[in-house]
């Protein structure tokens, strides 16, 4: 299994994450092309530190929306921050995490979705 941070690319070259059935920008069927962001730097658009996270989630839970520029377009993703603090405008890189929360303690059925993914590390 790839641990890259992959986003999806429609036949007309538009990027999206997560994958949609049809491209949110042009409406064509998405297909299976992906582009890796793992080697790129992203920029923190905004962040929050959640001090009362739900059951099975790390506390505090610093979350951010991160923007990448690739192939002439912007794409944004949400993810946790691995550092103890973060600021708008910080430069980050994605890092793979095998289990983002302990699904056993959440309301959603453990088998209904994946729990691995990426957080971000500040690399200013």
């Amino acid at each position, binding site marked *: 299994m790839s641990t890259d941070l992959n986003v999806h690319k429609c036949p007309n070259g538009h990027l999206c994450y*997560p994958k949609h059935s049809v491209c949110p920008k042009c409406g064509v069927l998405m297909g299976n092309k992906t582009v890796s962001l793992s080697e790129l730097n992203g920029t923190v658009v905004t*962040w929050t530190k*959640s*001090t*009362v996270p*739900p059951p099975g989630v790390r506390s505090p839970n610093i979350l951010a929306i991160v923007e990448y520029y690739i192939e002439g377009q912007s794409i944004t993703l*949400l*993810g946790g921050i691995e550092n103890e603090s973060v600021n708008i405008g910080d430069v980050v890189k994605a890092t793979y995490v095998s289990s983002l*929360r302990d699904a056993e303690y959440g309301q959603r059925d453990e088998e209904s*979705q994946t729990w691995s993914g990426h957080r971000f590390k500040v690399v200013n």
Partner: protein
Amino acid sequence: MDRVAIIGVSMTQFGVREGSWIRDLLSEAAMDCIETTGIVPKNIDHVYVSNMASGEFEGQTGIMNALVHDIGAIPAYTARIDQTSASGGAGIYAAWQSIASGQSDMTLLVGGEKMTHTSTSMATEIISTLTHPVEYKHGVTLPSFAGLIAQLYLHKYNASRESLAKVAVKNHKNGVDNPHAHFRKEVDIEAVLNSPIVADPLRLYDFCPITDGSAALMFCSESRAKKITQDYVVITGIGGATDTHVVHERREPTTLDAVVNSSNKAYEMANKTPNDIDVAELHDMFTILEILQSEDLGFFNKGEGWKAVEQGVTDIDGELPINTSGGLKSKGHPLGASGVAQVHELYHQLMGTAGKRQVDAKTGLACNIGGFGNCAITTILESI
């Protein structure tokens, strides 16, 4: 076209209703509305129940059948309407459609939620399950979305943190005069700014409480209403819309496109502009949401809603009073009830029966939001 009228309203006490479960709360509001209007339950054609999660909170599903049974309205058509926090607004839309289409001559809408028997952590988690899997797995909650967007709003528009606190101060002040409100206590800016951080930069007093409660509205055509009562208001505009399920995919994170689109439909239908609105009930689940909506409904330019709060424009004696009821912030937010309770307040404002909260108003607007702007319903009401 015969307009759709609301001929009676009711709501239970909002708050911690120990010993009252979802069926009790819905029946209490429904029977109060039935008694207020004098409508015989057997003569109600449609009964809608706005509710997000009675199965998850209490283990009681099928609450629409339970309510029709409990109030003696069999064989009325019934359905539970779920649009998460916007279930109340969606119920108004369904009730409006039932009358406007001619399918029902008399429709009862009851919204309600029973929440306070669960822990805050579990209630937050139940609500969080509305999020997309790629965001849910990061432990996202609705409060953390609010923190993310508030952080960006303050940064992008150089807005003051105090302006968010002033939303809470204003709405708590209004709620003091609302006998149905969960909290009838004023708070000052220092109390808000010194309360514990929940989702930086938002603090405990930036959030509405977890609340039990129910509210109800009775709908019929205006021509029918005229034969029953002189005390009614009319719905002249209504619109609903959605935005991306994945919040990080939003076109512009500080703009709630579902609010923009739903209100454009409502304004067009009512032949009104934002300048025509005299009073508004907005979905202040978080202080930042009231400011975002006030901009996305066209009351203020983008990035300037916070200034209007600071200048007192949205105070109860201001140019455009917002949340005279106390809003979700002080009244409480029993999910499915909130959109219905917004219109309960507007009915009284337009009828001139709002007591100490009364403002001068002929046209009112309610905006009810689901998720973090995932969906929205805007309703415009007018006095006759």
